[in-house]
């Protein structure tokens, strides 16, 4: 696109901006609704017709982090007044905080611990999947590998079997080798899930990087490894960023195996959030607040990587 624009181009550009804005509205409305619900008092979450304007409350967040049980009648005023602010917020929603009989301490819901587990598992497995995927993709892209197509297809096929079916043998295997309910277990699991994706995407990107760059570097006296790290990796950053975003999202949101393969130590947050629907009346506000908090790290991670995502793949000057 040339710097000097014709009239036609200006119009096209404006039309594009309008279209993008429209798309933003459509794509974001459900997310805005979730976010709004996260700050609603419980009785406004499902009204007929829907409530758009309301006074925001932190009640859903107070509930998200505490273990609660349903109250059959509102608490007495003195009890309410004597309670700390977060407990009052829970009372507002018709629930009470479950307290330890002996110590009188409020029981946390476990969401915080699960959130931390999610971070550990997702970050480590993403780093592993992306780095293994990148070097493997480079290997396949640049060297002659006997049966290359078959190996690549094998790698791809590890993602084809419906995961439900391997759940039972996977569970038995994890039990047998002691990976059940460990962070390492989940990390290995998610690395394996994401690896096929990482290899294929990275191969797509690395294939596009002209070989001439490396050849030039080799001629300049670089070793192959140096050429890989200093020439290929920087060129492949867009791909690495995109792959990292996708892998992180997959690991971050994985539900079925997180539920099956963990019990107390390594539980991640995704199975917890929908479980808040359980107590007779769905508490959409708590689910929304959990979803909102859970969306933040991925959104931030992606936002930080945005420039890499958009930078483009190469100087684009030389193509095979």
């Amino acid at each position, binding site marked *: 696109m040339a710097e000097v624009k014709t009239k036609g181009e200006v119009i096209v550009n404006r039309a594009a901006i309008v279209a*993008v804005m429209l798309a933003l509205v459509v794509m974001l409305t459900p997310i805005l609704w979730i976010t709004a619900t996260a700050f609603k008092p419980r009785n406004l979450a499902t009204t007929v017709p829907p409530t758009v304007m309301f006074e925001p409350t932190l009640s859903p967040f107070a509930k998200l982090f505490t273990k609660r049980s349903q109250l059959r009648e509102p608490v007495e005023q003195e009890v309410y007044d004597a309670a700390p602010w977060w407990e009052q917020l829970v009372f507002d929603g018709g629930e009470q905080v479950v307290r330890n009989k002996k110590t009188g301490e409020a029981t946390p819901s476990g969401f915080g611990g699960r959130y931390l587990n999610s971070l550990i598992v997702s970050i480590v497995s993403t780093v592993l999947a992306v780095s293994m995927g990148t070097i493997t993709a480079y290997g396949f892209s640049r060297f002659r590998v006997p049966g290359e197509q078959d190996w690549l297809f094998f790698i791809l096929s590890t993602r084809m079997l419906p995961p439900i079916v391997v759940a039972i043998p996977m569970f038995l295997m994890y039990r047998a080798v002691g990976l059940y309910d460990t962070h390492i277990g989940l990390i290995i699991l998610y690395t394996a899930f994401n690896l096929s994706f990482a290899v294929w995407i990275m191969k797509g990107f690395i294939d596009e990087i002209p070989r001439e760059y490396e050849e030039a570097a080799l001629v300049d006296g670089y070793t192959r490894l140096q050429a890989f790290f200093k020439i290929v990796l920087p060129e492949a950053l867009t791909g690495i960023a995109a792959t990292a975003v996708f892998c992180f999202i997959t690991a971050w949101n994985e539900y079925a195996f997180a539920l099956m393969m963990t019990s107390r130590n390594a539980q991640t947050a995704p199975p917890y959030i929908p479980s808040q629907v359980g107590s007779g009346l769905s508490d959409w506000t708590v689910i929304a607040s959990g979803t909102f908090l859970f969306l933040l790290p991925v959104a931030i991670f992606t936002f930080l990587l945005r420039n890499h995502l958009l930078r483009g793949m190469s100087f684009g000057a030389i193509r095979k």
Partner: protein
Amino acid sequence: MADVITRLDPTSRAAARGFSDMTIRNLFIIPTIVFLIVFNVFPLIYSLWTAFTDYRASTAAAANFVGLANFRELLSDPDIWRNFTITAKYVVITVTGQVIVGFGLAMLLNRKIPLKGLITTLLLLPMMLSPAVVGLFWKLLYDPSFGIINYFLGLGKFEWLAQPQMALWAVALVDIWMWSPFVMLLSLAGLSAVPKHLYEAAEIDRAGPFYTFFRITLPLVAPILMIAIIFRTMEAFKTFDHAYILSTQPTTELIAIRLYKMAFLEWQTGMSSAFAYIVLIVVVAITNIYVKYLNKAKAR
């Protein structure tokens, strides 16, 4: 293993310094392959074995070898064929929708736009949500009484999920909403790699926008777009979470939903393994065709 011939200049002296190319190749590739084999071999063999038995994981009873009985029963069950038809329809609807929306958005974004980084991040948000949560919330959004979709669009009491014929489209729409950003991001990466001088050359030749798109843009983006399509197709075949939460109409019973019921409600472990292998064969066949196209696209 012996003949490592690099595809780079064979006279390169790289091998003489540092690691040899063969060592690097092996170091780079073998751990991944070994890891994937070790990780998958037991579950695959286990489920392959149970596919030929009447094993039920809910009881302690020993599994009996039943030969091809599971496969025979499945393939002669009209309900299973219906599951496949529904899933095929679902895959076509969602993947087509995602490519149109995702690629379209990428084309729109592939220009100088203020706040492009922020806009792109925002557009990616739907795919960052957990599928189970997406299902729960869309059920709320679709609700004829509480939902905002009918409310904002003025559709009155339109029943998105209760009408058997509409339900599949409603479920597919959620999938398109959620995963178009995936196609968008990959397409965007591909688009930004198209060398600008090719467009400039086209402009000089006074080529029309259609010519430019089909002869320059599309061929160059095709490989990465194809990879996006392959992954979306594979994932669409496995769709479970949001679909199961949104609707369990017979008209929306996707393969993965039927499989789940068979494996974890009925505990017909053997039968469900057989079913899964049938699905695997179908997916492998389809993916194979895609990969052929991908290689063709790359060769151009």
